[in-house]
Structure formats: C-alpha cells, structure tokens
C-alpha cells in the first residue's frame, strides 16, 4: 500500500489515522462512561481519568495531523455509483464527525483546565490551561462534553452502518477503500 492517497485509493497514512481515531473514540467513550461511576475507593479512581485525559490530548494531536494530511493530500474521488445526494450526505456526515470530535476534545480540555491547572499527559508533559475563569466553566464544559460525546458515538455508529450498507446492499467498495483497497 502506498503512503499517500491517490485519486482512487486511500494511502496507508489515511487508513491508519482513520482506524486509530475510531479505536480511540470508542475506547475513550467507554473509559469515560465507566470512570465517572467509580466509587471513591476504587483503585482506578485516579488513574482512569488520567488515562482518559492523556489519550484525549494525544487524540487531539492525531486529529490535527489528520486534518493537515487531508489538506495536503486530498481524499480519493467519490465512487461513480454515488449520486449527488450520497456525495452531499457523506460530505455533511464527515463534517459532523470532525466537528463532534473537536467539540468533545475541546470541551473536555476546558473542564480539566477550568481552574488554571494544566493537563498531565502520561506524566511526560503538561498541556497548560488557556481559557479559564468563565463562571462555572467546568459545569458548562462538562455538559457539552457529555452531550457531544453521546452524539459523536451515535453518529459514528451511523457512519459505520452506512459503510456496511454500501458494502452489503449497494455492494460497492466504500468500506474496502477504508482498508486501502
């Protein structure tokens, strides 16, 4: 498989970034959902949120890279069997996914940094706070983070179902292309 996208195929970088982000999104959602219910004396009480935040920051870096890569290296052309409506729906759908991803990550960052504290990433480095001191910032950001996270995983699920529909019903190569075929 070539590194870069061609007009007909996704390259290795795009494929790996796509599946890495997919894994991270569902993993972070599950981790986040589980960690907020932990009791005060659970051994994971401190490490689970640390892990969630650390992976979240790394995901943000990966997403920046992904957007950059997409700008430098346009996605392959749409399949010929995709009509104008399908093309529009896919553009809008992908836009929503990108918006949701950045929204979830930024709102999460604004919870933990609301009091000016930075976010420690695996104890290796710290991402400093920027926007702080909005009245009840952590509550507002927290509500946005929760709703957007639910919206994102539901929408990502629909995105997966749409890919399966292309594969099994339309019998086109939409899903296979995401493996570099």
């Amino acid at each position, binding site marked *: 498989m070539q590194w870069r996208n061609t007009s007909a195929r996704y390259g290795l970088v795009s494929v790996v970034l796509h599946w890495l982000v997919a894994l991270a999104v569902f993993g972070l959602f599950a981790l986040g959902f589980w960690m907020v219910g932990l009791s*005060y004396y659970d051994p994971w009480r401190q490490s689970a949120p640390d892990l969630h935040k650390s992976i979240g920051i790394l995901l943000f870096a990966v997403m920046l890279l992904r957007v950059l890569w997409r700008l430098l290296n346009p996605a392959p052309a749409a399949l010929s069997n995709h009509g104008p409506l399908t093309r529009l729906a896919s553009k809008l759908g992908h836009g929503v996914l990108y918006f949701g991803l950045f929204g979830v990550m930024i709102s999460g960052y604004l*919870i933990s940094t*609301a*009091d000016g*504290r930075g976010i420690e990433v695996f104890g290796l480095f710290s991402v400093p706070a920027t926007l702080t001191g909005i009245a009840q*910032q*952590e*509550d507002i950001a927290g509500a946005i983070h929760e709703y957007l996270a639910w919206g994102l995983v539901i929408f990502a699920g629909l995105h997966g179902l749409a890919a399966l529909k292309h594969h099994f019903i339309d019998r086109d190569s939409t899903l296979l292309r995401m493996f570099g075929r």
Partner: protein
Amino acid sequence: MLKNALAALVLGSALIGGQATAADYAIDKQGQHAFVNFKISHLGYSWLYGTFKDFDGKFSFDAANPEASKVSVTLKTASVDTNHAERDKHIRSADFLNASKHATATFESTSVKSTGEGTADVTGNLTLNGVTKPVVIAAKFIGEGKDPWGGYRAGFEGTTTLTLKDFDISMDLGPASQTVELIISVEGVRQ
C-alpha cells in the same frame, strides 16, 4: 461593672435613637467580610477546605439581650469552591449538592441560647439539598463597634457539624468523611 456600663450605654443609645433594642445587621457582602467555609476529612489523613462564594444574609443582635438575636443566611450551592474545578463540578453534581435542582441552601434561626461569655447556641432550620433539618450552630461573638467609615459593625463566628447522609448526600467518601464541619464567619453592617 464595665459590662453593666456597656449594657447601659447600649440601652441608652437605643432609647435615644428611639429604635428597637436589637439592631438589624446586613452581612457585609459588598466588602465580603463574611465567609461560609467547610472542612471535611480526606481519607482521615488531612482536612479539605472549601467555601461558598455567593451568599447573603442578615441578623439582629443586641449585646444586652443576646437571646433575642435572629439570623438568616441564604447561599447559592453552585458557588462552592474548593480550589479544584473537577472536584467543584463533582460537588455540584447529584452525588453531593444537586446544585441544578437545589440551587439554594438556607439557614433560619429559631432560638438562641446563651452558653457563656460571648457564646451562644443558635438553633435553626438548615435546608440543604432539599432537606430541612434543625441544626445547632455554636456561635461566638467576636466584636462590635464603629468602623472607620461611619458605619457600625458586629461580627460572629459559628460552627456546626453536619452528617452528609442526613441531607441525602449520596456519595460515600469513606468512614472518616461521613460528616462535614461548617464554619460560618460573618461581619454585619448595622442598618
């Protein structure tokens, strides 16, 4: 002797002023010489301190007749601050204060019993997390007198210990942290 003289002076000025014996004070919110703090044990190893930043209240007080004193305080539960945003978010949640559902907590005194020189037990109803229960605040008179800016002030500090479960606070912080001490330190400006 001095005490009697003071009492006579207070009574005298009250008569001259033609007002009721107990003066009304508003908690100094403007200058924020007032604090509603709390402390709770962390694992039994240290004290965690917090404060409520937004509250208001009033009291009436007469040094000659302290048992006629009255006090009422209302605070916004969402104004809790423990110097840690993630913790504050948790304290406002349904695990603790339910701040979106029960936005205010109030204390209204019902009786004051003098317990010694400058001390009293202030009994009243505390409404917290939607639960109203009688509590007794052990209060201490700190001082009163003219301020340098033409006003007259009096200040008190009181403490009481609340059991979290009594106020339907569901989070279990462990055996050392079943109760929280409330420390109310206020200065009032005579109206």
